[in-house]
């Protein structure tokens, strides 16, 4: 009857093994890992003393931005964008610092849960405003950037508060081998525990569906409204983790947001997530964060003017994304 359609479907089945498919699906992330490997070698060459200590410093310093990037990924996958991530991190960070200041270690566990819950609530507010007011995502979250930043300053006017010892300890030092920083293990475990079950659930499918084609998703019976709210809640949760890691690594709460929002967008783009939604995963952006930060480190080793380094960082971002898209286009032909 329609031999052509048959053969098209069967070709896709036959010509690709599971391994080939894995590479194809995760090509961008694997490419980024390749770049990362090259960068590590370069780093070792220009700074022969770079070793476990450097790696550990790197792992700790990227922690907040890595969580911010994952948070942004959650919003972007569902065809949204969250400009309030930096402010949410500041707010959750100061709340954590205030709650844990001079309290018992046990109380800190409760505080951590409260802060994570706070993050989910902040995200739910963002998401609810987006879907129920029908104001574009970028406008709502821009407005909430100011709201959450203001709230952070209301909670704590100047940097202060404290962090529980155990919380600071989980990010510091190596695990088993000198080369494996605890911070990286923590990062991967936390992201994995939250993300992988979601990715495999019908909710996760809905998240990708809404980002990929909202109309088709709606017609397939997906609730676009609730899926979007959920994506912002997830973003809020990861932003709260980012805020907690800020408090944990610095030992205090800082009410003024860092440059995390825009850097998270940069990491999402570099991490192979389509800003149009529906494509990509959370691990690409995490690798992208490591790359961005390692480039900065290398420039410092090379004594490049920091301002010049910022310019170079921007150019590298455009360059990598351009080359990557070009390779993808070529491959799809």
């Amino acid at each position: 009857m329609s031999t052509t359609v048959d053969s098209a479907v069967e070709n896709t089945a036959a010509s690709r093994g599971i391994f080939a498919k894995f590479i194809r699906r995760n090509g961008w992330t694997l490419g980024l890992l390749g770049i990362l490997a090259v960068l590590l070698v370069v780093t070792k060459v220009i700074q022969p003393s770079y070793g476990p200590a450097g790696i550990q410093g790197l792992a700790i310093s990227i922690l907040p931005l890595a969580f911010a990037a994952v948070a942004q990924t959650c919003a972007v996958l569902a065809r949204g964008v969250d400009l309030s991530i930096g402010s949410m991190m500041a707010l959750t960070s100061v709340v954590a610092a205030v709650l844990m200041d001079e309290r018992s270690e046990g109380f800190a566990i409760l505080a951590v849960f409260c802060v994570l819950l706070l993050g989910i609530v902040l995200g739910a507010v963002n998401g609810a405003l987006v879907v129920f007011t029908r104001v574009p995502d970028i406008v709502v979250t821009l407005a909430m950037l100011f709201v959450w930043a203001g709230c952070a300053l209301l909670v704590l006017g100047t940097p202060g508060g404290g962090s529980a010892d155990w919380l600071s300890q989980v990010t510091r030092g190596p695990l088993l081998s000198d080369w494996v920083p605890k911070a990286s293990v923590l990062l991967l475990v936390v992201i994995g525990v939250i993300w992988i079950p979601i990715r495999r659930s019908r909710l996760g499918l809905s998240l990708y569906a809404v980002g990929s084609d909202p109309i088709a998703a709606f017609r397939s019976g997906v609730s676009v409204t609730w899926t979007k709210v959920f994506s912002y809640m997830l973003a809020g949760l990861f932003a709260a983790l980012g805020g907690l890691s800020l408090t944990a690594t610095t030992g205090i709460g800082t009410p003024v947001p860092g440059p995390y929002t825009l850097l998270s967008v940069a990491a999402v783009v570099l991490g192979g997530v389509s800003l149009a939604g529906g494509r990509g995963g959370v691990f690409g952006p995490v690798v992208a964060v490591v790359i961005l930060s390692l480039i900065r480190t290398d420039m410092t080793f090379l004594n490049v003017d920091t301002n010049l380094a910022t310019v170079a960082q921007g150019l590298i971002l455009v360059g990598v994304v351009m080359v990557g898209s070009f390779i993808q286009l070529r491959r799809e032909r």
Partner: protein
Amino acid sequence: MTTSSTEYLLEATDVSKRYGAVVALKSASLRVRPGEAHALMGANGAGKSTLVKILTGGVRPDAGVIQVRGSERRAHSPAEARRGGVVSVYQEPALIPDLDIGSNLRLTQTPVEPFRDWAQRLGLGNIDLSAMARELPLASLRLIDLARALAIEPDVLMLDEMTAALPANLTETVLGVVDELRGGKGSIIFISHRMTEIAAVCDRATVLREGETVGVVDVADPDSANRIVELMLGEIVEDLADRDELLTRGGLDPDTAPRLQVRGLASATRLRDVSFDVRPGEVVGLVALEGQGQDELFDILAGSERPASGEILLEGSQVSFRHPADAISEGVVFVPADRAEALLMQRSVRENIALPFSVRPRNWGPVPRSREKPKVDSAIERLQIDTRAQREVRFLSGGNQQKVTIARWVAGGMKTLLCFDPTRGIDIRTKHQIYPLLRELAAAGAAVLLYTSELSEIQLACDRAIVIFNGEIVAEMHVAEADEATLLRAAHNLPSDAALPEEVVAAAHADESPHDEGSAQ
């Protein structure tokens, strides 16, 4: 009402819906019996799509009752409608491009085994569930979407223009499945513009006009097709071009120099070798099945694509367009089928008409309103565009939007008009305004090349017809000879004395497979 509730599987009574001041649906009723294939018909703007959206839960009605198996149902989302047993398949597949087929099934909680069975029956073979939806050809996706709907054994399966963009052989497959389902437990609501499909598979047809149900026709009646058209049109009677008038067409002086000459034109993809002339004052009709190279031909002529080989001559001198602006400055203008590709939907009629003559960088300064106004006004008047309120183009009806697309070129002083299926998705009234308009423009000295997917329209507007098959011209004829049957045979590249229409269709399917293959890759 209580007795009928057992007789009908789905019953919508006096459903209405208004959007602000616009009444989309006045009082629509639809009664579908179990086991029947029921056609829903209506011209554009009759309220068909609104009724479909209400039945599938996408839109809430203002008033009216919808009952499924006798009990009232309120579906507020497609998910609820789906649980209530009403599932629809649209022209554009509702599959998520970035998920694999397995995930798409999981998304709608579709059981895999029945899906595989249906996929087999639809000729899809053994589907690889881990294939990404975006990597499969569109035709397969449409069938996969149908198989997914069939797999959950819905009470009511709604096929909303599902066949409109399917290749003919796959349409046949779908119609076969619909035919098989007839007489079963569930029923089918079938929406299509093609009368032959309705006649082939449907039992009854409900006709909507201006938001109201105006009649239910038994398709088995010998005169049903005419009856449906009458109901759809209302008081307007379609006046077909009469034969005497046809013979007077194409009466140009044979010495008239051609305005547009195309010599051996080929594209990198489907267009292989096309040569023809269009003279000022004539409308040349182009006929082809889907994907025979006509899209490429128009893109090349309009300057959006560059030819692989061949030449284009305008008034005898060779031209090479690098950008649509080059073509426009030579007076060669393009009217696409999809108005959204031509118009700025969120700007006013005036701006849309004035845009083409103020886009060159040297014109980037202030807009010369006083010089622009008379041109725009005369174009609006000439085309009888309904411009009550100088509002955004997206608020106009499809027909008026298409008129704006043509008006902008009339105002700009075009000499060669390329129309690609300009009446696609336009109601019959406006169609009957557009064709005389094209003739009028030709009479005023324009050379018009018109591609149409509705064969009957060739005789309404053209002087000559050329037929393209597989990237080459296979026939050229005077309009008086170009009746639908002749064009259909030529479009399938069959000799003009070939057999009966049924066999023509069957033979054509055998021909089509190699082209499908080309499009699938």
